[in-house]
């Protein structure tokens, strides 16, 4: 079943065409990798899907609804969640509060003012911290974490509201090899719960966790298919793999 469909996306910034007719289809519970050289349009495509950018042309449908003009908040309420390329945890708040903030986004303002959902959400907060191996540091400020741990925290924040689609923009950027391995382990179990679109430069990492790959080059889709199919495609080897 198709969860997300982007059709003919064009995004122009001034004289630069960042996306030039990109199509992308994501099925339910699919792990999909976006790869391509620097400046190929991966992050722009991700932003058009998440609502951080509005495409100049083209449509995005999510769960059968056209969300091309929807705000990021509306998309989030529909079940889409994004982890930014640049880590954007809230450094002054504790890890606990960072996760609670993500979890309580759907709570009404009256219930927030009366703190009515804190009891219900407490167990979920602790479970997320446990899952991402951060529970021992629950009450420390997020600024005290290493870069890799901040990336995990942000993935946990994105995953906490139980989205239908999780968008991860370079989740292993700046991580050590060991941290990358652990990140892969942390992401595997979520397959049963949601779909994933991931932008990554680390090909080994993306090969291990993704079902399908899309390769972008100069704002256009070069190839889409299974990992094996894309890897064996001569055009991809020419444009991307050789450069990598």
């Amino acid at each position, binding site marked *: 079943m198709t969860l997300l469909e982007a059709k003919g996306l064009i995004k122009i910034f001034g004289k630069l065409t960042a996306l030039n007719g990109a199509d992308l289809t994501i099925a339910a519970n699919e792990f999909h990798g976006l790869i391509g050289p620097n400046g190929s349009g991966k992050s722009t495509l991700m932003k058009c899907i*998440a609502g*951080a950018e509005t495409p100049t042309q083209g449509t995005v449908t999510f769960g059968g609804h056209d969300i091309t003009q929807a*705000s*990021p*908040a509306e998309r*989030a*309420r529909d079940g889409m*969640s*994004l982890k*930014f390329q640049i880590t*954007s945890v*809230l*450094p*002054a*708040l*504790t890890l606990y*509060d960072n996760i*609670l*903030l*993500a979890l*309580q*986004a*759907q*709570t009404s*303002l009256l*219930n*927030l*003012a*009366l*703190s009515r*959902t*804190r009891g219900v959400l*407490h167990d979920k907060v602790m479970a997320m911290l446990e899952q991402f191996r951060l529970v021992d540091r629950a009450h420390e*400020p997020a600024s005290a974490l290493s870069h890799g741990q901040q990336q995990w925290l942000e993935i946990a*924040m994105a995953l906490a*509201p139980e989205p239908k689609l999780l968008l991860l923009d370079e989740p292993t950027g700046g991580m050590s090899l060991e941290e990358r391995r652990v990140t892969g382990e942390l992401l595997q179990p979520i397959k049963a719960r949601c779909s994933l679109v991931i932008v990554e430069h680390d090909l080994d990492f993306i090969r291990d966790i993704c079902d399908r790959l899309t390769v972008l080059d100069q704002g256009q889709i070069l190839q889409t298919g299974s990992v094996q199919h894309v890897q064996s495609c001569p055009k991809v080897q020419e444009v991307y793999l050789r450069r990598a």
Partner: protein
Amino acid sequence: MIEIAVLVIGLLLPLVLQDYLTVYATRVLILCLFALSFDLVWGYAGIMSFGQAVFFGSAGYGVALLARDLGITSILLVLPAGILIGFAFALLLGGFLLLGRHPASVIFVALGTLTGSYACDRLARGWYYLGGQNGIPSIPPMTIGSYELTEGPAYYYMAIGFLIVVYLLCRFLMRSQFGLALAGLRENEQRIAFFGYKVQHLKAIIFSLSGAIAGLAGSLYAFHEGFVWPNMLGVVISTQVVLYVLFGGSGTLIGAVIGTVVIEAVSFWLSNSYQDIWPIILGVLLLLVILFRPAGLVSLLLSERERVGSFGRPGKR
């Protein structure tokens, strides 16, 4: 602990102060209420309102007109009216500045509110019905039944009563899950929009709430002073309240109170002792605190962790 110490001192003060100082202290308490209103929007939600005096002054003018033209002075009518006026003005200004499809920048909101404050000041100065440059003098006293509330210990205790109630309400709200949402708004507005928060609504709500509190302060101030004048709406008071909060420590309620009390007390003392150069001395003092204690005076008493606090669960303070 600090809050209780400040409360005890506040409650005992009229017993040891001379009458004229009690009147001055009452004015300071009302300004503390006004500072709380600014702290909510700036310290907690990160919205730079440089026009907080609009809500303070418009409520002051509103209740002054009620008293002058309609003879309405009952506390049960004038204070709710003042709160409503402050709320309505904040809703209007906030709606205009904050409710666009795209989030408004800090600079846009700061300049927009500043312009609003300046425009209201000029409007009041030029409007004959509002008394022009002279404002509205000789406002009849506020009444509770047949009792007239004039400046002195009774007004002081009423003002401290309102300050305590508003302080506790703000404290409850800022430590709730709503307070956490505001902390998220202040720290990274884009991040929480991607969680699904309606950030513009959050901003409009806290902005209007702060307008209501400023309206309460403006109403109390108008009846305490017995007159209102255009400065109550203008840029000088709007800036003064920013200094109170920066000096005391933004993002903490007690910081706003301490900042107001210290600035007003030091101003009072300096203006008596150094009549010609006291504004310069005060300015240097403010600069020193802001340079060397950017988190305000309250950072001498509370740790960073305590200042950020906890939300929607038992606090550590």
